[in-house]
């Protein structure tokens, strides 16, 4: 087997050194009743070539672009990824290393993550960011736990327009705690209704997503003020950070902690993971931040270098008192996002964000004039909710057969919006495809 270098002679001479008659002897500390009775019952090993064939047949029939036209975002966005970035991710000194515990031989990872922390902080308008968390859902959960720790209060107010699946993760993280999760309803214009805040006491944090799940831009500044007025923290969440290339960043709107999903920053969708859990914070809260942090320092000769720092927050030092249990994070995805942001640059991200928005507005306009109702009038980024005329379900199925996925049906997530669909257009969505969709829906 090409992955196992041992020849019979190697094994023999090694056993001699070890003083064992055969390899089984090395397992003598494993009691019989802890062992499996039979041999592994697994399929015959595939050669590299059989594996390729197997995988090729496995993915046949998957509904992916370019074969399929997919107008669905909802937390997983289709953006172009430069070949230069894909190429650089093949640099195996970076991909086959682990957490940079030995900084002297990990400066590549460390500088890259330090740069990631910086770029992400700049994108979100925050003072600092960690080295990554798993995904948008766990990032939100960690951000809320962090807010509760900071304020010492128990009530957590969550906008109902935060990605429904992120909120599901939050529920999971909070179930063994005695903190109270309160959901804030939404208004007819598609933004969070905060009036309920008045009824809440011991309020630790108010969390809102912008652009929210309906693609609408929230008035983060107002939400932030309301939170702060109640001595609570303002946590801003996101699923589409590209929006901040154009729209105001959470940091400039008073967010104390910003968290979300970074998949759209150059990371392929890959059926939902790995994505990138982003968590950024005001510097004053840095010692409450979960996960790894890379910091700049000097070596013995005064030369600039980078290390993992503030480790006393972390499980391997603090154990049960750590700010989080996270150890392995999504470092390579953070690196990808950094490469992507570096490739785009400030000028590029502005233009790209603008293009995303304009494409989406075009689709919105065309669908509207084709007789579909645009449900919320609040400005959106690259997603919006539409209500097609009655009996669209069949149309939706018919379009699937034509290899068009006409957005995400909202019913499972917002029963009151049965018959409404969340549509998405990015820079990868051509005018031609949008016109096709509009035509097909109409016909």
């Amino acid at each position: 087997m090409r992955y196992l270098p041992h020849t019979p002679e190697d094994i023999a001479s090694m056993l001699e050194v070890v003083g064992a008659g055969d390899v089984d002897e090395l397992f003598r500390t494993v009691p019989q009743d802890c062992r499996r009775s039979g041999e592994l019952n697994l399929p015959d090993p595939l050669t590299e070539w059989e594996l390729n064939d197997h995988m090729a047949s496995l993915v046949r029939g998957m509904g992916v672009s370019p074969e399929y036209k997919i107008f669905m975002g909802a937390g997983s966005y289709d953006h172009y990824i430069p070949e230069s970035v894909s190429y650089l991710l093949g640099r195996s000194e970076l991909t086959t290393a682990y957490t940079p515990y030995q900084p002297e031989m990990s400066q590549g990872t460390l500088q890259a993550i330090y740069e990631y922390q910086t770029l992400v902080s700049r994108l979100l308008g925050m003072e600092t960011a960690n080295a990554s968390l798993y995904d948008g859902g766990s990032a939100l959960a960690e951000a809320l736990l962090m807010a509760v720790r900071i304020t010492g209060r128990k009530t957590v107010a969550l906008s109902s327009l935060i990605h429904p699946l992120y909120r599901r993760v939050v529920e999971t993280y909070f179930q063994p705690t005695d903190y109270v999760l309160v959901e804030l309803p939404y208004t007819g214009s598609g933004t969070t209704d905060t009036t309920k805040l008045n009824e809440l006491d011991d309020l630790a944090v108010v969390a809102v997503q912008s652009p929210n799940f309906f693609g609408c831009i929230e008035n983060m500044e107002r939400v932030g003020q309301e939170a702060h007025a109640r001595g609570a923290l303002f946590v801003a969440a996101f699923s589409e950070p590209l929006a901040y290339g154009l729209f105001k960043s959470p940091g400039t709107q008073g967010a104390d902690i910003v968290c979300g999903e970074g998949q759209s920053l150059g990371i392929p969708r890959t059926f939902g993971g790995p994505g990138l859990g982003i968590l950024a914070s005001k510097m004053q809260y840095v010692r409450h931040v979960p996960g790894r942090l890379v910091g700049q320092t000097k070596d013995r000769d005064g030369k600039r270098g980078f290390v993992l720092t503030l480790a006393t927050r972390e499980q391997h030092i603090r154990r049960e008192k750590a700010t989080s249990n996270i150890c392995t994070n999504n470092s390579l995805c953070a690196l990808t996002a950094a490469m992507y942001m570096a490739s785009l640059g400030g000028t590029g991200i502005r233009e790209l964000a603008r293009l995303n928005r304009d494409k989406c507005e075009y689709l919105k306009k065309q669908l509207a004039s084709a007789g579909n109702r645009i449900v919320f009038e609040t400005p959106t980024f690259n997603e919006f909710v539409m209500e097609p005329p009655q009996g669209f379900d069949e149309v939706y199925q018919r379009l699937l057969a034509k290899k068009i996925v006409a957005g995400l049906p909202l019913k499972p997530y917002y029963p009151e919006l049965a018959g409404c669909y969340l549509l998405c257009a990015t820079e990868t969505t051509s005018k031609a495809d949008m016109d096709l969709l509009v035509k097909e829906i109409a016909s």
Partner: protein
Amino acid sequence: MREFPGATGLILNEPLLWEKGKKGRCGMSLPRRDVEPAPLDEALVGEGPDFPDLSEIDVVRHYTRLSQWNFGVDSGMYPLGSCTMKYNPKINDKQARLQGLAGAHPLLPPELSQGALRLMFELERLLAEITGMDAISLQPAAGAQGEFAGMLIIYRYLHSQGSRRTKIIVPDTAHGTNPASAALCGFRAMHVKSNDEGILSPSAIAEIMDEDTAGIMVTNPNTLGLFEEHIREIAEIVHAKGGLVYCDGANMNAGMGVFDVGRMGVDVLHLNLHKTFSTPHGGGGPGAGPICVKSHLERFLPVPRIVEANGGYVLSEDYPESVGKLHSFYGNYGVLVRAYSYILSMGAELKNVSRLAVLNANYVKERLKGTFHLAYDRPCMHECVFSDKLQHDYKVTTLDIVKRLIDYGFHPPTVYFPLVVNGAIMIEPTETECKEDLDLFIDALIAIAKEAEEDPELLKEAPTRCKVRRLDETSAARRPCLTG
């Protein structure tokens, strides 16, 4: 004898991204605009981020240079204990790049995602066969999240029994994520010492296991690389008091084809696919930490679950007692693809993987004991733990020893963990290292031990070959500079 890999050569300085570039450059091809600019409420518009503008070559050179300051498994031996830094086959990465998977939206209608679902379904079955457990969720994004999921399952199970318990037993050899995950689930960690053989003695467990204790988190093989021989008896003690047994299976590379975790009395187990199943560690992740349970706990597994339905596969939320969702979607799918592809490439050869991993560890142990103090002189599993005890006389520490190892061209082992061994040096060679490379590594450590006696300064000054010398971690933490 072959020369040691460590050498110095030309590498290239590279500034920080924002120390490069000029406004107006762009390193990415921007798509052609085929729609009109839409009106935009200026009140909503922000500054846009202050990113440096770089051309494509700037970006390519930046990361090419950075990569050369790094050391990965592809660079050389990386015997980081407890992390199973084995070779990551390139073919597995290729499978994860298949557009049919890499391009797949997680919320596609099931009829458009059968292949992706089938892979998950089959991987669950394969892992069940390998572990001896009954049901599996692939959702946890890493080992720690797997532990948390496991704690939640135990928490939910106890609730279902109408019992609320506040404590959980955590041995002193446990990885830091264990107590942290328990705490996240509201359990107080009750620490128990391992005996002088480095494993848990049933009596110690019996002493503290009570009706207010949810159970035990045991790592097997434990972080000393030793098999918990009394695991079954311990499980009986815990079960007898109504508790459950959680097994941290991060070290499963020791026992594939040999262990039956189910038979050990374990109720919940997590695996680290990025260790045992060869997925690249990515400089710190992503990983995957599937959670495996015996049938009586299946109903608590995270949702959605992949189920077979009339010849196909669907995602089902229909598990009212489930602990819920841990990941926005289904976990680190790209990592699952690599593990699946690895398992299909190995088949029953996985048993040899573990046998050779254990052989390599014992070989290193035997050849180095005497040179370094062996914490527990017993047959080890996939890794062995030494300490700097014998070097104390020369005022040389574990840190000095491993920093010197860098100059020899090897990645250091895990150090100062597990905590039960002072100045621990935890070596996990993995099965993909050949005997010649093991010998080179061993000879390097022997040479370093000699240097420690004869010229300790060599160790104190190490490393000298890297781009930077030892870094000032104290001031980094005192005056944190986390962004530029």
